[in-house]
């Protein structure tokens, strides 16, 4: 009885029809947060006394990296839900989370490389954090490739869900890499358990950007999921009536 919402949530049609109402709100919040965070971070946050203005890249590098990791959870968990409960919507979400996650990981890597040039004097090093992020990028690409590799959607879902689940082993490695192998990448400045090592005047705009990226992720995931649902359900009556 209490599980009715769970089954309803698994219905692609229910999702398609209801997500339409969420989009304008989510879109507005995302735009406001991202614009505020960008202007604040670029123009009003104080200059870093060591890195100069190049540190302003943090306002996209860190949120992109956050969401690259959070997106992996979304992909792996929905893959697991799809495997266990055969929930249609979960399979769709897993498939859609892969290209979005890959794009965000790509952004984290590229902005990191560009930031590295003026700060470390090099675009790329085989540092533990960077390498494990590269592995994350390849895991996303693997899921995308597996989705395309099979004729049958169900086989593709199963294979890519298993890859996504096996790949979760990389997540704690990414988190801990800066502590285990202390090389070039700086350790986490933002901590949940102890106080952060970043000044509030720099931290507030970063927080705005992180929230903005979370909203952006939700928005884009919903958009991709809606497009995918239509194509998968094109033989059903409700899609034909659209």
């Amino acid at each position: 009885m209490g599980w009715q919402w769970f089954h309803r949530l698994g219905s692609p049609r229910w999702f398609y029809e209801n997500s339409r109402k969420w989009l304008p709100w989510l879109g507005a919040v995302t735009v406001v947060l991202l614009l505020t965070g960008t202007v604040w971070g670029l123009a009003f946050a104080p200059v870093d006394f060591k890195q100069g203005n190049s540190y302003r890249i943090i306002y996209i590098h860190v949120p992109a990296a956050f969401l690259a990791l959070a997106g992996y959870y979304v992909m792996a968990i929905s893959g697991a839900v799809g495997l266990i409960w055969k929930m249609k919507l979960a399979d769709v979400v897993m498939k859609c989370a892969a290209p979005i996650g890959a794009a965000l990981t790509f952004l984290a890597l590229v902005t990191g490389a560009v930031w590295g040039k003026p700060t470390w004097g090099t675009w790329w090093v085989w540092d533990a954090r960077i390498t494990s992020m590269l592995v994350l990028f390849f895991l996303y690409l693997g899921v995308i490739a597996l989705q395309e590799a099979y004729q049958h959607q169900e086989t593709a879902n199963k294979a890519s869900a298993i890859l996504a689940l096996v790949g979760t082993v990389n997540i704690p490695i990414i988190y801990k890499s800066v502590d285990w192998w202390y090389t070039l990448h700086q350790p986490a400045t933002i901590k949940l358990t102890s106080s952060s090592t970043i000044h509030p005047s720099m931290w507030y705009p970063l927080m705005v950007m992180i929230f903005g990226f979370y909203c952006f992720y939700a928005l884009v995931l919903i958009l991709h999921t809606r497009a995918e649902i239509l194509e998968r359900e094109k033989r059903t009556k409700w899609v034909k009536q659209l």
Partner: protein
Amino acid sequence: MIFQFETLQDFWAMAGHGPYVWGCYGITALVLVYLVVSPLRRQKRFLQEQRRLLRVTERWVAADGTASRASGPNTSGPHVSGQRTSGEIG
């Protein structure tokens, strides 16, 4: 909160870090916009294609009802009339 730069030129130059910072923000903006636009375009194309197919099928069904069934295999069937109809629309 104060604007951290003396002039707009300073803001653009970022004391020498301008290309790095603006480059990053530019790439990010492109990727984010692409992530929003691509599913919207895909959905729009899908719906257009489905409407086209629906019209084609409707015409075919209507033509099938009026035309004689003995018109031969070459002129009947959804594929043939589909090509004709798409020519008319496009």
